């Protein structure tokens, strides 16, 4: 079972309720948040943009890969779009599994791969300008 969504706000309680289930003894939840600095610059906010239908399809592909590789009870992938202030959650990856090793490995796989393939873009805003992350060589 998987919950995969592009949202404007990540609600932790909702994520946890989805993951909680009687056959899972381990829940691992990774939350990526907006850091106050990047490359030595003070960050004021981030703006996320997604190619939503394709982003959802790519996330679903990753979910299928993870479910083939590990024994997973519940899988959750949420990513935000829109403006996000320092401290706010921007991505949540959650795995519920019988044992903890699977939860750790699958969470790590999903966030690593999400960052490589899912068509979502982040623009950093500083006091003196802005830039699309990772766009230039």
């Amino acid at each position, binding site marked *: 079972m998987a919950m995969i969504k592009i949202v404007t706000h990540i609600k932790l309680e909702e994520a946890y309720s989805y993951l909680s289930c009687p056959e899972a003894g381990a829940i691992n939840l990774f939350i990526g948040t907006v850091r106050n600095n990047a490359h030595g610059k003070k960050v004021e906010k981030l703006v996320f*943009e997604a190619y939503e239908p394709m982003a959802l399809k790519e996330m679903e592909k990753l979910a299928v890969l993870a479910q083939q590789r590990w024994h997973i009870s519940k899988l959750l992938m949420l990513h935000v779009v829109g403006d996000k202030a320092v401290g706010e959650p921007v991505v949540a990856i959650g795995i519920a599994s019988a044992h903890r090793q699977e939860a750790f490995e699958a969470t790590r796989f999903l966030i690593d791969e999400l960052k490589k393939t899912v068509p979502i873009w982040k623009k950093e805003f500083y006091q003196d300008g802005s830039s699309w992350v*990772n766009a230039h060589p």
Partner: protein
Amino acid sequence: MTIKLFGITREIVGASHIPVPDNQPLKTVADLKTWLYMEYPSLKQLKSIAVAVDQSYAEDHEVLGAAAEVALIPPVSGG
């Protein structure tokens, strides 16, 4: 054919879509890229541009054919 743009490609081009003139014989993804870099040379400043055909990554040799939806995918930076 129309090409969807996101993030920095949208900003560079100054629009959320590029219309491809009907007289352009763009058979493959590679043809599309060649045409794009000619029309919008500033796209060359990006680290990479991938092409999505019908919401899936497409290789250079793939034929555009009757693609319902084509999009440029500049380097992703989600998460």
